[in-house]
Every structure is written in C-alpha cells, then in structure tokens.
C-alpha cells in the first residue's frame, strides 16, 4: 500500500481506470479526432523532457493550453505534417491518485511506455515516461484538465508526430 495514495471510492477509481484505458485505446487507434475529447476546454497538455521538468525549465516539446490547440494539432497530424507513417502502442500502468483537492479534482499519475512500429521495421521503444494528470468531473464524465507527459526518453528517435 502506497502511503502517498489518497483513499478513493472504488467506483470512482474504476471510472478513472476506464478513462486511462480509453485514452490509450484512442491514441493508438489512428482516429486522431478522438484525442481532444478526453480534455476540458481550457486544458493543459504538455509533452516535456524530464530534464526540463526537474530543473524548472518551462520549455516543452509540445505545449498546449486549450482543447482548441489539440484540435489544431490533430489538423497538423492529418493535413500538414509530413512524416513516415507508423503505428504506436501505449502500455499504461495503473493510475496512482496522489490527492483529491477541494474541488474534487483527482491529482494522479501513471507510468507509460509507447512502442513505435514503422511499416518495414521492428517494434521499438519510442517514448517512456510518466503522466502527471489532473482529472475533473464534467457532465460528459471524467476529463483531463491537465495531462503532463514527462518523458525519460529525452533523445527522441527523430520525430514525434502522434499524441502521447
């Protein structure tokens, strides 16, 4: 039992796990339009190397401050970014809820590993890190108000196109 873990209603925890599983399934499906729907309108999404995060440098590899920015990214993936097509596969650990704040938002985290498979090559470890999330309840269910992907794999194998 992790002493940092906040006690949580089992039903809520189950709902949280379903959110994590849905997210992984969506971003691996190739249906990029699904991705922004996991976030609130004024969400924060960042993909940040661990060094920047730990040393307090604000730069992120991707830094979005609204669901609209995520939709712009989806447009980029589909229409403007030239790239080698690849499959990606997320393996996400069980979410650990650190605390529930006064507004009922869940502050949680989970380890993740993303494998990349190019059409004519082997599957390789692509991006490994930790999600630092703030999850809130909305009329449409649980959504990410913040998803910070802090990655250990600081030497990116050329380019990251799809959402982590």
């Amino acid at each position, binding site marked *: 039992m992790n002493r940092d873990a906040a006690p949580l209603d089992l039903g809520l925890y189950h709902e949280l796990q379903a959110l994590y599983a849905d997210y992984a399934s969506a971003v691996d499906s190739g249906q990029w339009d699904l991705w922004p729907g996991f976030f609130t309108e004024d969400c924060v999404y960042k993909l940040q190397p661990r*060094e920047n995060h730990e040393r307090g440098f604000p*730069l992120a*590899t991707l*830094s979005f*401050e609204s669901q*609209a920015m995520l939709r712009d990214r989806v447009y980029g993936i589909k229409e403007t970014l030239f790239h080698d097509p690849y499959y990606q596969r997320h393996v996400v650990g069980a979410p650990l809820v650190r605390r529930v704040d006064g507004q009922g938002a869940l502050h949680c985290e989970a380890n993740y590993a993303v494998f990349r498979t190019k059409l004519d090559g082997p599957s390789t470890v692509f991006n490994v890190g930790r999600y630092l999330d703030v999850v809130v309840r909305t009329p449409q269910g649980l959504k990410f108000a913040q998803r910070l992907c802090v990655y250990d794999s600081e030497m990116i194998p050329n*380019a990251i*196109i799809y959402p982590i």
Partner: protein
Amino acid sequence: MDLTPANGACPGDAPDALHWEAGDTSRIPFAVYTDPSRHQRELERFFYRGHWCYVGLEAEIPNPGDYRRSVVGERSVIMVRAEDGAVHVVENVCAHRGMRFCRERHGNRKEFVCPYHQWSYALDGSLQGVPLRRGVRQDGQVKGGMPADFDPKQHHLTRLKVAVRGGVVFASFDHDVESLEDYMGPTILRYFDRLFDGRKLKILGYNRQRIPGNWKLMQENIKDPYHPGLLHTWFVTFGLWRADNKSELRMDAHHRHAAMISTRGSAGQATGNASQVTQVSSFKASMQLEDPRFLDIVPEPWWGGPTAVMTTLFPSVIFQQQVNSVSTRHIQPDGHGAFDFVWTHFGFEDDTPEMTQRRLRQANLFGPAGFVSADDGEVIEFSQQAFDSKPAHRALAELGGREVGETDHMVTETLIRGMYAYWRQVMEAPQ
C-alpha cells in the same frame, strides 16, 4: 553519367578524390554522406582543426563551479565556470587512463575527480592530485608510485581554446585558430550580434532528437530557402516563410557560414491566388487556427526589420530567430549516418512574463515534434536512406544557377553550393 571508380574512396591523408560530375558543386555526390573514412576526415578537418565549434550558453553556467557537459564533433567536453568567473572548456578524458569521467549532464563542482583512480583536476583542467604518487611505505621501504620525474604539469586535461561573445560559448581544439570574429566574418557577425546583443539570456529549456542522417544535411536544410515554403504548410499558409517574402541570402567570404533573412509579408496569411506561391499543394487556403495564440506574434525592437533570420555557423550550430522563437541548435555527429540535434530555447532577462509565454507557445512550431520542424528530421532520414543505397549517384543543387553568390531572393540553392565549395577546398587539400 560518368562515375569513376574513385567515387567513395577517401584513403588516408591523400586528397579527397571524389568525382564531382559538373565540375562545380551544383551536383553533389551521394558519397559525401556515406563513407566512414571521409567522415573521420571531416571530424579532423572541420571539428577539431581550424574551426570554432559551439559548446553552450553562458547562462547555463552562471555561478562559479557550474559546469555543463557538451560535445565538440564526437568528443565529450565540459564547459565550466572557474572561481574567477572565467569560462573553461576541457575534454572529458582523464589524463591517466582516458576514461570519460564526467557522467552528469550538469552540476556544480569545486574540482573534477575521475572515479577510476581518483585523479583530480582543478576547474581549468590542471592536475591537482594523483593518489599513491609517491608509493607506499612497507618495511621501511618506499614501494611503487610514479617515477621521480613525473610532472603533473604535463598531465592536465586537454584544454580547448575558448571564445565567448554575446553569452555564447565556442571552443576549439586548435589553439592556432583565428579569432572568433575573423572566423565568422563581418557579414555573419552582424547577424550574430543582432541576436546576441549583450542582453543576458534566460534558458527556457532543451529538446533533443537523434536524426539518422549525415550531419551536413542539417546544415544544408538551413541553407535551403527553397523547401520551407513547400514542405512546411504552416510557413506557406501563414506567410512566415514564403518565396514571395522580402528576403536576402548572405554568406561569409569562405561561403561556409550563411544567414537566410526573411520578412513576413504585411498581409500575413495569403488569401487569394495572387501569385504562384499559393498554388503549391501544401498551401491551405481555408486553414484557420482554432487557437490563434500559436501565432501571437509581437515584433521586438532588436529585429530591426526581418521577422526571421536563420544563421548557419559551419560546422556545428544553427542560430534560430523565427518571429518570437529563438534557439540554438547544436549538431553533434555520431558516425557518418547519424547526429544528435540539441535545441536550447532561450529568452532574454528583460522579457515580460507575456513574452516568455509567447516564446514558449511559438516553440510548438519547432523541435522534434514541431508543427514545422518535425518534418525536417524526417526528410533528412529518408535522404540518407537513398544515399546509402546508391553512393555512386548524386544530388542536384542547381536552383538559381550553378554559381555561388549572395542574393535578394529565396529561389536558389546557392548557399548549399557555397558550403560545398568550401568543403572541397578543405577536404581536397593535401593535409
């Protein structure tokens, strides 16, 4: 096509015997990208001799004892600030057994100690301590130890020559290298000083990517004003970099360094069918940003007109100003077929919080996942794949003619031709 068997060969110290089909540098042999022995010669002649290489920014080591590990060519070096404030760059190779002793990426130290036999060095690289130098005393006798004539002064870490200008740190293994200012030449120095004008820099953070392509391809990418308005939809659609923008291409006298200078059209986003630039397939007439803050551009006084200046300093670095986003991009070769590309984004000490936020937002265009830059790494990878598969072939760089010269337009590959004219001069010299 005449392809002599000499292509691909770069033996020992003999002059490079590569065959250049056109005589000039408008047709570039694939073999310049594919041969390990030629790569070794490039390291010797460009990265380790006669040239300055980028190491880092002073703002990364503000305090005495601060150090940051960096790279010159394929050699690991440490940039460190001594007690007296001076910046030193020493090679990360112990003078004893050669171990690459510094493993942390950055930190603060009073001295460097190689863990293997605990030889210790002052921050300027001088050898301070050698354990058991005078042997051990056993049974009234001194046994072992270094020879009596061992002179610690002869065994310091390899020191590089250092030049600091505008907060940017350069180093060279060649202590006879010309001054940094002469190395850049007056034209390039002017654009360097425009960006690094003496204001203190503020580090915003790093991005790192490994690109499986020859290191020169990144220099060429930023000497190629032809592709940005074609490959990069964002540039052409939002007018950030387009063939019809007011622009200039400038070089140093050797044609090794260059600056691509561009001014965004006053109209910003092109709307009509006024010119051929909007006919290219990557131009998206209907494209609108759902969140326009990505391009919340605010002109800064130091720009002095141009909205983008991309400076290539041969061989090791690119200085980026693209509207409010500024960065250094460090080229770190690893064999002929790959390089690490390290981006250091920065701002200035007098930036308002809003300006910092703006620089961070615009950074979404750049780096290994950037709306614009992600595809540069991809095209370099796929070029290298082709080079490796047929090294006897050659690429074309004939846009805008076959000669080398400065221009006031972007429809030319003259900067690439210029770089290879310099490359040939150095690589084809006897020694």
